[in-house]
């Protein structure tokens, strides 16, 4: 790529929300005053020690942080190369990394006096985290979820309802995450006066990609300290799955300026990159959707194409704008794993480590299976185990028994 290398990979975005050409604020005028307010509120909250202190209290006692950095001994032995550590985000309350960001956004919403929270969700992990914190703080919660995802992630739909959220199945378009986001934006435009939109990933109009990244960066910051404590040095490589890319950005961002750390993002290659998939960087190009410019899957006319992944959480035709930039400047290597590779990794981790991963991080494990054997035994590889697989057990069970 012919893009100049910056002095730091961690200084973005600029004041207009751009990471290179990516990012920005491509929203309807109705929403513009709201996202400017949000930016102001976030800037003020960041500078307020009381905000951070309150958040740290909930992160420790409600979410259960820090999450462990666990040496996966049997997986390491099995693959016969790099020493593999799992960052155990699946042990957080609600079962994934999503809660880190939701906690931050709900606390912002409270500061802004918003009483009604809306969210989009794919796999349901972000929806569950949002429903959970709305229950905790007594806020109204409406979650938009594609009708296809409602079907394949039933356990999470039931959880959200038990937590008091209203789940709205979205019938428009492809009836997956992209359409859930369209519908959430339509709700927000309609209910601007009392509603806070809690976006689940590092995408959307500025300042969302930045604030979600900042709330998720606790993953990488903890990893850094934990690895120092266990091994006395930095890791040599990081691996994480990417739909919108929030768990990956949370792990990667604190290490971007450490040149010895190799970084790998893993997109969902679905049935394969020449067929239906959800790998925006591998198979897309820059375009504008959902408030930002980023890599998107689209046709020659700029119409957004259907994504496909076995994992509802990765089934999105775009990616966070900072990832698009990190790809263009060459700091992060973006790979992809197919449905079949993810299924194999799902089973391998379950059997070797007694940890059933969500299908999303199973994509990251799938690439660890390729990368680790090629690296020496003193190579320290961290993979973000971003969510637990309980929600996927019925779906994977059906597939393995040959029902689907």
């Amino acid at each position, binding site marked *: 790529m012919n893009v100049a290398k910056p002095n730091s990979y961690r200084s973005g975005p600029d004041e*207009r929300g751009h990471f290179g050409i990516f990012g*920005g*604020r*491509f*929203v*309807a*005028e*109705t*929403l*513009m*005053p*709201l996202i400017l307010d949000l930016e102001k509120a976030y800037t003020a909250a960041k500078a307020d020690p009381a905000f951070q202190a309150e958040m740290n209290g909930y992160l420790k006692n409600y979410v259960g942080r820090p999450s462990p950095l666990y040496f996966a001994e049997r997986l390491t032995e099995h693959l016969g190369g790099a020493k593999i550590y799992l960052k155990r985000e699946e042990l957080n309350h609600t079962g994934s990394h999503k809660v880190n960001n939701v906690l931050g956004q709900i606390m912002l919403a409270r500061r802004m006096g918003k009483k009604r929270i809306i969210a989009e969700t794919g796999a349901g992990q972000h929806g569950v985290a949002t429903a959970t914190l709305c229950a905790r703080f007594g806020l109204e919660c409406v979650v938009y979820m594609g009708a296809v995802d409602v079907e394949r992630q039933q356990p999470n739909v039931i959880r959200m309802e038990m937590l008091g959220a209203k789940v709205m199945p979205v019938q*428009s*378009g492809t009836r997956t995450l*992209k*359409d859930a986001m*369209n519908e959430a*934006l*339509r709700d927000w*435009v*309609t*209910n*601007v*006066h009392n509603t806070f939109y809690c976006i689940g990933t590092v995408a959307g109009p500025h300042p969302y990609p930045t604030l979600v990244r900042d709330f998720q960066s606790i993953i990488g910051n903890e990893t850094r300290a934990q690895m120092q404590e266990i091994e006395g040095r930095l890791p040599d490589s990081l691996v994480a799955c990417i739909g919108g890319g929030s768990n990956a950005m949370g792990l990667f961002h604190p290490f971007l300026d450490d040149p010895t750390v190799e970084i790998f993002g893993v997109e969902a290659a679905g049935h394969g990159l020449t067929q239906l998939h959800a790998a925006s960087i591998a198979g897309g190009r820059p*375009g*504008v*959707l*959902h*408030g930002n*410019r980023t890599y*998107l899957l*689209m046709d*020659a*006319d*700029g*119409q*957004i194409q259907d994504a496909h992944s076995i994992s509802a959480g990765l089934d999105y035709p775009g990616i966070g704008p900072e990832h698009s930039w990190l790809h263009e400047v060459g700091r992060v290597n973006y790979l992809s794993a197919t449905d079949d590779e993810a299924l194999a990794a799902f089973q391998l981790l379950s059997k070797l480590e007694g940890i059933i991963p969500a299908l999303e991080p199973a994509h990251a494990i799938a690439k660890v299976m390729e990368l680790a054997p090629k690296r020496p035994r003193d190579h320290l590889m961290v993979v973000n185990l971003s969510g637990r697989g309980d929600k996927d057990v019925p779906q994977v069970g059906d597939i393995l028994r040959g029902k689907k």
Partner: protein
Amino acid sequence: MTTRIDTRFAELKSQGRSAFVTYVMAGDPDAATSLNIVKALPKAGADVIELGIPFTDPMADGPSIQAAGLRALKAGMTLKKTLDLVRDFRKDDNVTPLVLMGYYNPIYIYGVDKFLTDAKSAGVDGLIIVDLPPEEDDELCIPALKAGLNFIRLATPTTDDKRLPAVLANTSGFVYYVSIAGITGAAAADANAVGEAVARIKRHTRLPICVGFGIRTPEAARAIAEKADGSVVGTALVDALKNSLDAEGRATAKTVNAVAELTAALAQGVKGAQQAAE
């Protein structure tokens, strides 16, 4: 630079009349029928035509216009064919202002400079691009103004007095006031609230102000026409079109007339309005 939009609003002002602005989706339900509909609009009383550019993910549109876009895409509509439609329309009509309305991505992918050249030569007068607020003016607004096209901005109930100057700074042709916080075709606009909003915007600009979102009937169009320089109807026309289609969503012998008849009724409503004194 004077566009057909400027000329038309000057004429209407001298006649003491409010403009009737119609929205239809390009290529709905197919390119040929769509061209016939667009041709029928001025004869039925449309003063300005807004032509939707179909897009898969129209974030600010309600179910009717979402479905219209998908019908058009399914029938093979593209941005290039939308410009072809405008060019064909211009063969018989060189006076009715025509504005393209849609989302940025198809234009970005077409290429901004090439799009502006092609749109201008096809006979497009202005652009309304929903997801380009003033914060992104460098993308398309400034180049469009340089190319001699009007860039019509949306002002909304959330656009306060502090923000209005920024919204109006590079706006030309007219201002499109979105009468409700919401998506197209959702709630009904309250004429009194609209009157206050129009008066507020008029304190910041001399441009004509057209009001849209939530106007469905001749009576509603008339009420808005008494408060503003123009009223925009979209969803009601798109619904009339849809109700004329056969079970497979194809055009029937009734389709063009269904849109033309409702346009005529709405235009009557607007023309019956007592224009508010300036």
